[in-house]
């Protein structure tokens, strides 16, 4: 039985209606605790490491507030007191909870000022990238000046917390290096080079492994034989052997290719390739940098710049228009190609025994070497692949030069001292996201002056001053300026318009405020709640808010770690060949984006009957055919036939990130649900617990191994909450595929929560979770506030969380409404 929803609502109403100055009645709290809790959390026993008989009220420190918050959560969950223990009546619970909430509010007021403020925070790496890209109008798709930055510190996967992010000598040195790269690149882009053109036809030399078969084919074409993520990289990246040096300058280029889809329909066992022969072959283009490594291997930065579907038949010209950085050369890829060309050769030659050399074995195991296998397969076989017969490149295209802020500011006349001062001033205003002070501009001028004195040209001096601006704390740290507090001094200091503009734009765009935000900041309009709400909507409506969608999901659901324990290639080959990892992320992002756009209820995260998938995901999820093979790689909204997949707990991203790529653990997944869905993290395990030593030889299932938790009451007190949640997810394998057994052992995903509620599978669990959507709302609000303010949300801030959640029913629990409530909350607009 779930005891809480009504009660919770009542408690929240009480909170909203009661002035916080009313004194809480601590005797009520103490009585309740000693009647229902102290038996297990008192002098005799301290289950879960908790002891309440010594709880000091009124709360004198944050720990006490954390305990109170915990009690509230446990009552809401219906987990405590345990089913077999003496139960408080609903009325008793309500009285108790009212007092706890009052005490939380009072404690927060008293303890405010000793903590809970955002600490001066530096830009993290992704914000830095967006910020310099924005300042100089650079295309950052294949330009990363931060590759040597140390990894950003994070806590609970949040990568933007002020006091967690650190600055070190090493990082500062890297900032200096990155400033150099950025400024030099921005100025190089100022030059207007002549358009050039190149024409390549024949003499296409492939990577060494493929050179013998291609010599027989007269090197007449570039051949692409496999998808991009394979174990051996043999013919997955087609490059122009006579154009390895790449384009001379940054810019848009027109790339015309005479391409041909070969053998979409082939005579072989489809399992050899793992592709769907109904799909048209897809030709993609990624940049390559010969200095970064072999062009026929994957490279760290290779965004897909263009993609076309190829019709069967004769070669056809396709025109692609792409941005290329200086030194980058186009490379052609085959995203829906074979899972591994190298591993396919030996299987293909079996179909072509007539082509075997006379001395090769005709029976039994293929006695040919890899070289022979490859030649026969490529030259004589009918393997699906893409041929590129001709390439014409033209660029940089003059008309396509993006309007660069640098260009706007730095004309040739900008180099006289007064003009240079103006240039630097206006740059510093933008770089520091507020009006720069005279001192700051003086210091930049001094850098330029020193360089000119040392014999550099005025333009070099100017560039070096810009590099100084990019290394200044005024640029690297987000402003926390506040307006002088008014009234009794107890209210939280409010951010100035400019600080608020930065907080909003880094929240929703991970980038600096644009002109409109800066204008509203300067005029003071932005601090008005209605203006702030309108700006929130404007920012969310912009595609730049993709940075929020991905940044927040990566932080909340740990998706940044996806792939950090790579799934085993042998067992989960499709994870690589079908590009499931990026597809998982896209699925989750589209889902979140859709909730924002429709302002749809947040309970859809917990359970719903739809999702956003493409054909590879549909196949992976066992959902069958989505229709038109030509659209296989388009994501679309679909209705699911049953309740397995709807919501976060059916998404590949969540299911993969909670496994280790080899096997699943109900404990790990159960803890994930408690922490990130219900917001009720279990205490860490005590010392000296033996870990599970998996033994797959016998018939011992994970359930049997974990059943040891039941034998010890100490383990059981926490694991009765953790394990059932994890078992419900055991039908999902380590990459989120559906399974009904481990080998021969059938999977039992039924469970019972401490509240007594039973479920038989994931669908049943999701129904129960929906009943707890208020807990989920608390958790989501907490995560949003954390991400938005760049700091932990502590027990002191719970009142604000409560208030936002209490207002949610009036806003139909809408996702966008929740974001707006976060932005207009006192935590967001205050220090």
């Amino acid at each position, binding site marked *: 039985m779930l005891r809480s929803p009504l009660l919770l609502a009542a408690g929240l109403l009480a909170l909203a209606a009661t002035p916080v100055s009313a004194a809480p009645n601590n005797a009520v709290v103490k009585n309740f605790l000693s009647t229902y809790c102290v038996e297990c959390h008192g002098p005799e026993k301290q289950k879960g490491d908790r002891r309440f008989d010594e709880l000091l009220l009124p709360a004198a420190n944050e720990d006490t507030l954390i305990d109170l918050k915990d009690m509230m959560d446990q009552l809401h969950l219906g987990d405590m007191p345990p089913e077999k223990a003496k139960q408080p009546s609903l009325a008793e619970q309500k009285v108790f909870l009212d007092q706890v909430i009052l005490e939380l509010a009072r404690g927060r007021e008293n303890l405010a000022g000793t903590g809970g*403020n955002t*600490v*001066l*925070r530096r830009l993290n790496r992704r914000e830095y990238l967006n910020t310099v890209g924005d300042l100089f109008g650079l295309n950052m798709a294949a330009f990363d000046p931060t590759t*040597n930055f*140390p*990894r950003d*510190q994070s*806590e609970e996967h949040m990568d933007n917390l002020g*006091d*967690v992010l*650190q*600055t*070190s*000598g*090493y*990082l*500062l*040195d890297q900032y*200096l290096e990155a*400033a*150099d790269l950025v400024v030099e690149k921005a100025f190089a882009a100022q030059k207007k080079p002549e358009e050039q053109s190149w024409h390549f036809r024949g003499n296409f030399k492939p990577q060494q492994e493929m050179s013998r078969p291609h010599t027989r084919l007269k090197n007449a074409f570039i051949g692409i034989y496999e998808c991009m993520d394979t*174990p051996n990289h043999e013919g997955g990246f087609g490059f122009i052997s006579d154009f390895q040096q790449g384009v001379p300058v940054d810019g848009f280029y027109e790339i015309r290719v005479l391409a041909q889809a070969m053998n979409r329909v082939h005579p072989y066992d489809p399992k050899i390739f793992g592709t769907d022969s109904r799909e048209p072959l897809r030709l993609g283009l990624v940049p390559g940098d010969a200095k970064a490594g072999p062009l026929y291997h994957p490279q760290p930065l290779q965004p897909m710049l263009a993609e076309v579907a190829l019709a069967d038949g004769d070669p056809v010209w396709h025109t692609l228009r792409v941005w290329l950085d200086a030194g980058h050369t186009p490379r052609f890829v085959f995203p829906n190609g074979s899972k591994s060309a190298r591993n396919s050769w030996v299987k293909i030659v079996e179909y072509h025994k007539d082509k075997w050399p006379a001395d090769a074995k005709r029976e039994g195991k293929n006695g040919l070497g890899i070289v022979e296998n490859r030649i026969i397969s490529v030259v004589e076989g009918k393997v699906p692949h893409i041929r590129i017969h001709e390439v014409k490149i033209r660029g940089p295209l003059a008309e396509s030069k993006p309007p660069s802020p640098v260009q706007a500011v730095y004309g040739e006349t900008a180099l006289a001292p007064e003009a240079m001062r103006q240039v630097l001033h206006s740059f510093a205003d933008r770089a520091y996201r507020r009006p720069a*002070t005279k*001192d*700051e501009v003086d*210091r930049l001028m*001094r*850098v330029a002056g*020193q*360089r000119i004195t040392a014999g550099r040209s005025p333009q070099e001096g100017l560039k*070096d001053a810009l*590099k*100084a601006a990019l*290394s*200044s*704390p*005024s640029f*690297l*740290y987000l402003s*926390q*300026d506040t307006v002088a507090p008014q009234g009794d001094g107890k209210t939280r200091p409010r951010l100035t318009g400019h600080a608020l503009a930065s907080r909003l734009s880094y929240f929703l765009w991970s980038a600096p405020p644009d002109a409109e935000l800066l204008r509203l900041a300067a005029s003071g309009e932005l601090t008005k709640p209605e203006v702030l709400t309108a700006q929130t909507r404007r920012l969310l409506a912009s595609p730049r808010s993709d940075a929020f969608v991905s940044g927040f999901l990566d932080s909340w659901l740990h998706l940044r770690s996806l792939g*950090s*324990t*790579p799934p*085993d*290639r*042998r*067992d989960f080959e499709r994870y690589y060949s079908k590009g499931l990892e990026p597809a998982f992320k896209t699925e989750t992002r589209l889902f979140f984006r859709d909730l924002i756009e429709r302002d749809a209820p947040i309970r859809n995260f917990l359970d719903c009957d739809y999702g956003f998938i493409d054909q590879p995901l549909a196949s992976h999820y066992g959902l069958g055919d989505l229709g038109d093979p030509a659209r296989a790689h388009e994501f679309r909204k679909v209705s699911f036939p049953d309740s397995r997949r709807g919501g976060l707990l059916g998404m590949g991203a969540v299911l993969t990130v909670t496994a*280790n*790529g*080899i096997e699943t653990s109900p404990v790990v997944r159960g803890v994930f649900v408690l922490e990130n869905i219900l917001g009720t993290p279990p205490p860490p*395990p005590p010392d*000296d617990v033996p*870990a599970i*030593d*998996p*033994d*797959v*030889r016998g018939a011992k299932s994970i359930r049997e191994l974990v059943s040891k938790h039941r034998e010890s009451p100490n383990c059981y007190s926490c694991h009765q909450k953790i394990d059932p949640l994890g078992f419900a997810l055991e039908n999902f394998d380590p990459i989120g595929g559906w399974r009904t057994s481990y080998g021969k052992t059938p999977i039992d995903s039924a469970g019972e929560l401490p509240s007594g509620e039973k479920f038989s599978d994931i669908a049943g669990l999701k129904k129960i979770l929906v009943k707890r959507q208020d807990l989920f709302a608390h958790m989501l609000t907490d995560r949003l506030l954390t991400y938005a303010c760049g700091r932990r949300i502590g027990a002191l801030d719970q009142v604000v969380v409560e208030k936002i959640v209490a207002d949610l029913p009036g806003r139909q629990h809408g996702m966008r409404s929740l974001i707006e409530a976060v932005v207009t909350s006192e935590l967001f607009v205050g220090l």
Partner: protein
Amino acid sequence: MNSELPTFAPSRRHFLRATGITLALPLLESLGGRVFAQNSAVGALPGKAAGTSRPKRMVCVGNMLGFHPPTFFPTQTGRNYELPTVLESIKPLQPEVSVFSGLDHGVKGGHFAISSFLSGVRTADAKGMPEGNLTLDQRAAETMGGATRFPSLALGSESGLHGGCLMSWTRSGTRVPPISTPRELFRKLFVSDGAAQIASSTDRLNLKGSILDAVQGDAKSLERHLGRRDKEKLEEYFTSVRDVEKQIELRRQWAHVPKPDPKMKEPNNKGFVSDLPLMYDLIALALQTDSTRIATFEIGGDFEANAFGLNGGYHAFSHHGQRPDAIAALVKMERYQVEQFARFLTKLRSTEDGPGSLLDHSMVLFGSGMGNANSHTNGNLPIIFAGGGFKHGEHKAYPEKGLGRQPLCNLYLSMLQRFGLEVNKFGTSTGTLSGLT
């Protein structure tokens, strides 16, 4: 003096003489102390010439999946113990090697705890520790202030499981990014810049100096408007500025000192598994030429099973679930690691270093932050220890529980003291490691 370095004759001192640079280089000890010991950094100039007393060196090698315990830990203790399968290749070195069991950091977290291997502290717990998750090598490197071009070297692979090397961490909690390939390491150690490059890098150092002056001014004016906690945060920035300033000074001095000649050609990269012996050779050369005295090396994500002709992943084999075929594959990969390590020890032992061998003056640690990968535990870590003038030859089994338990950091404290540091605490140490002489 050349006789001390028979294989690779020119020591730097010799080199300097030969190139007409006298040893009257500025003493930079006043600049010592905090250098941010990164690969990109250059350390300081030698304060004094090498004498008969040879400097101590430290090498720490780790892997990220541990070793299959039944084939790693000897069943007997003391001397002349029977070598288990994985350790067979240390047979010729057995009297000069110690194998420890029962040592660990008392942490949990499986893969998430292996970053604690050389610090005793998980990254997640770093904030609560007085020195964060500062690792052994970086603690030692902090005191190098002047002696070598590189205060320390971190080597390891940057891909695969965990997304990269997790061995070496600085006091500020930042990871030291590793050098991943023999070629990159070779260039760093032995390829000197040309005159034009030196001029341009000197100019860049001057520019950095000007920029640091300016931004320090910005930080000071910013500070005036900040509250207490924000001031504390901004202090990190000031400290960073001072660190970079020191570093610039050191680099300026080093820019004109030629790098030693290793008497070998620049190697090509052949893949992590094949390159393992070469990486060890380059570490030995780095120590021998006194380019650095401290190195870490992680056998990480690029150590791939397919290089052994095995069908499956290293990580998957480590989750063997007691399947015999998976264990066999795992043991094969682990044996190779120990063989190459033994080869490295042999090389150090056969290299003269003053009145002894390079091994006599090098503490060499080999092990993992992972205890048993199948159960994802970080207890009872596999540890081999050699050299450094300690007495070796035994399998020492320490109690895993109870009063006699000793944290692995006790060994690290012993190592730091032997390295010459006057410290009485490191990480979670409770003292020096008993039984180590």
